């Protein structure tokens, strides 16, 4: 029975992935065209050496394949994608696929950590606020959330750096994933905190974690608010519903009522929001990545966009679209676990 349930879920997930392919294709073509409509000419930008003239511009244009017509470029681009080639970045001089592969784990590690911190803070806060609506605690949570939202991430990032690095000297220097003097573990997952553990290097693991805390915290602060608000709202509904009243009336323990009955029913919208928050954070944490010199995909894409470097931007959007599809799928599967009545399809 359990096996067939699992099999069905996998089959449905597979179907869902297939059905998202047209959307991915649309994103691919749309980004391609959008980049070409933008008014910057990458060839002119990159030919900005002290003596680069018309000849250099033409040469770069040829190198980037921009000397061909747009439909021709699109065909070449699609056939390259079909062969798993995302093109080459002018900015870093590396193949885009290699850049993304090196940078994605950095972004994922940061985003997962930030989301974990945010959820650990937001769900209890939301629950506490919902248990006593209108109380001082509720207002306190609201104030905290409002502060988190209205302070932009780069401000909180710079503040955290100022206090914990500059004034107190507790945090390591905010320059990337690992101290420049620490040697890296053999790369297995790309997640430094995991790789260090696998290599059995506890000192390195702690060094990597220390680098991670501040950027993750400044990102988490920003997303605690939506998560806590949605937890509170959905807990209120859940606490006021018939089954909770029944559970209370039959004398179930407080913990059982709140955690097992109310929270489990209230968690669905939180999961949805967490999925959306995750995808947004991954792409939109440019400022945190910049402030902490985090070698992630978002700052990579922004730099590429500013210099009209087509290949990395296209590669990044495709990657984000792919991740969005996967996250949505994961959210749907989580639904199934949280509430067996829901089935994905």
């Amino acid at each position, binding site marked *: 029975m359990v096996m067939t349930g699992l099999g069905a879920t996998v089959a449905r997930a597979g179907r869902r992935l297939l059905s998202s392919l047209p959307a991915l294709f649309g994103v691919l073509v749309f980004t391609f065209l959008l980049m070409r409509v933008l008014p910057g000419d990458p060839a002119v930008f990159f030919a900005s050496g002290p003596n680069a003239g018309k000849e250099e511009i033409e040469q770069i244009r040829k190198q980037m394949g921009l000397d061909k017509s747009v439909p021709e470029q699109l065909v070449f681009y699609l056939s390259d994608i079909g062969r798993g080639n995302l093109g080459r970045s002018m900015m870093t001089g590396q193949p885009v696929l290699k850049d993304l592969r090196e940078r994605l784990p950095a972004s994922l590690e940061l985003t997962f950590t930030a989301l974990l911190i945010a959820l650990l803070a937001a769900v209890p806060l939301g629950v506490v606020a919902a248990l006593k609506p209108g109380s001082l605690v509720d207002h306190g949570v609201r104030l905290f959330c409002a502060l988190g939202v209205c302070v932009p991430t780069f401000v909180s990032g710079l503040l955290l750096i100022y206090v914990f690095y500059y004034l107190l000297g507790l945090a390591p220097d905010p320059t990337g994933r690992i101290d420049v*003097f620490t040697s890296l573990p053999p790369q297995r997952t790309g997640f430094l905190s995991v790789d260090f553990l696998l290599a059995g290097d506890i000192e390195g693991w702690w060094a990597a974690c220390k680098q991670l805390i501040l950027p993750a915290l400044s990102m988490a602060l920003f997303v605690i608010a939506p998560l806590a608000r949605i937890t509170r709202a959905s807990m209120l509904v859940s606490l006021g519903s018939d089954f909770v009243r029944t559970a209370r009336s039959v004398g179930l323990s407080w913990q059982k009522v709140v955690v097992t009955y109310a929270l489990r029913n209230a968690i669905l919208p939180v999961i949805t929001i967490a999925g959306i928050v995750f995808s947004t954070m991954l792409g939109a944490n440019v400022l945190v990545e910049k402030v902490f010199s985090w070698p992630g995909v978002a700052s990579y894409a922004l730099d590429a966009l500013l210099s009209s470097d087509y290949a990395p931007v296209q590669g990044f959007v495709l990657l984000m679209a792919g991740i969005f599809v996967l996250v949505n799928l994961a959210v749907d599967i989580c639904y199934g676990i949280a509430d067996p009545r829901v089935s994905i399809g």
Partner: protein
Amino acid sequence: MRFVSFRPASSVLATAALLLVAAAPSHAQTRAETLRYVTGASVNTLDPNIPGSTRESFALSMSTYDRLVAFGRKQLNGKWVFDLDKITGELAESYDVSPDGLKLTFRLRKDAKFQDGSPVTAEDVKWSLDRCVTAPILGKAQLLTGSLTSADQFKVIDPLTIEVTLPKPDKLALPNLATVYPLIINSKVAKEHATPEDPWATAWLKEHTAGSGAYVIESFKPGEQVIIKRNEDWNRGSPDKPAFFKRVIVQSVPEPATRANLVERGDADLVVDLQASDVQSLEAKGKLKVISTPQYNSITFVSMNNQIPPFDNVNVRRAVAFALPYEDMFKAALFGRGAPLFGATWPDGKPLNGIYPFQAPVKTDLDKAREYLKAAGLPEGFSTTFSFNVGQASTAEPMAALVKESLAKIGIKVDIQKLPDAQMSTQINEKKLPLFTEGIVAWLPSTDYFYRNFYTGNQRWNYSSINNPELAAIAQEARFEPDKAKYEEDGRKLNAIHFSEMPQIPLWQPNQDAVMASSIEGYTYEFHRQVDYRDVSRK
């Protein structure tokens, strides 16, 4: 991560030995022998010749490769700067210029070796220079400015002598060989990686080095960091010694405030691209060494498109020149950190000398500006746009607001346009911007070079699109003028035309503010406006 090693077996042994040795000295000692340099930019190629290479890549190549010759250095107001007039040998032990100026003969150092241990020969030099003028790389356009255009000009005389022939006695031929591009490559190694489509091994050299320079690449992560270690055999700086630092870490830190924190806390040793406000506060605290050098081979200006109405009228251009709020802009944009190019007095109305960039006799004088507008037939003013690129926003944004405010006083309504860098360069190339601010730099800052490159022809670097036959003719003539007095006279004429035509308005030369730990010595302002890691040492 890539390691460039030519002798894998011995380098493994060396690494093992290093590890054993490294266990003994304390962390502090190795830190003292390491230079940690942080920058907002990043290295994107190991060969600076690749189109699109960044300034950080230029700087790195100065340490990983040698050239035939190098610029000397001199003191300017107590600060070390590169000296265009003193060219010393780098790979060349000595050089001769023939009396007619048409032949340059270089004799190579006998002890010079590439990083793989093989000797540097005249064949390697010829291959490298041939590559620079033949391959589709950046060096081609640069060497052209020194009349170096064809492989036929480079002749191997014997294994240690090479001769360069010039069609005309060009003053810039020799200095050109000291610039970033004509680096000397180990041709045997490079040829092994050449392909029929890529005979000059550009693809391979982009990610590997094969030079004789002071430093060897230890690891290269494009966009993040480069770590280089000392080449112990290199002795081109001082007679018997290699470079000072055993290791140099070039790390990208995009946020300027973070860079300032790093250097203040002593975690970074040297940074040259801080915001003017941070430099000022760090200087005031007095813990760090701040060396500010006006970038005397660069200019920030406000340019007008001399072909687009109403800026095709010289009186409109003059009106703008007298309406700009120079002092306020200088303070708001740079905190006064630089050399102003406004506010001069020319007693008899003539240029003080023939040197460009020159300080112009312009100042904020709204009445005069209104008169010029009236003379142009536009007493009511007009509307226009003022553009700058996002990359320069920290200085250009406050400036733009002041320009808008001041020009409004004489009736010119300005719409501020902040453009992404690529869009800005595209619009400049297409000559579409009426009024904008930009900066230029010349590696070989001679008067004729500036005028020929930035004020003549229908080309991208002629920002103002000025088309003045007299100016073009004098600039061309000055290029090959051997007589110093006549050259100076030509320069004065050019400067006079510049002031009377007012194609663009030079504002200032911003400072290069190098902020460093107090133990760092020997910092020199270089032509490429980056740090040459070979210059610096720790006390």
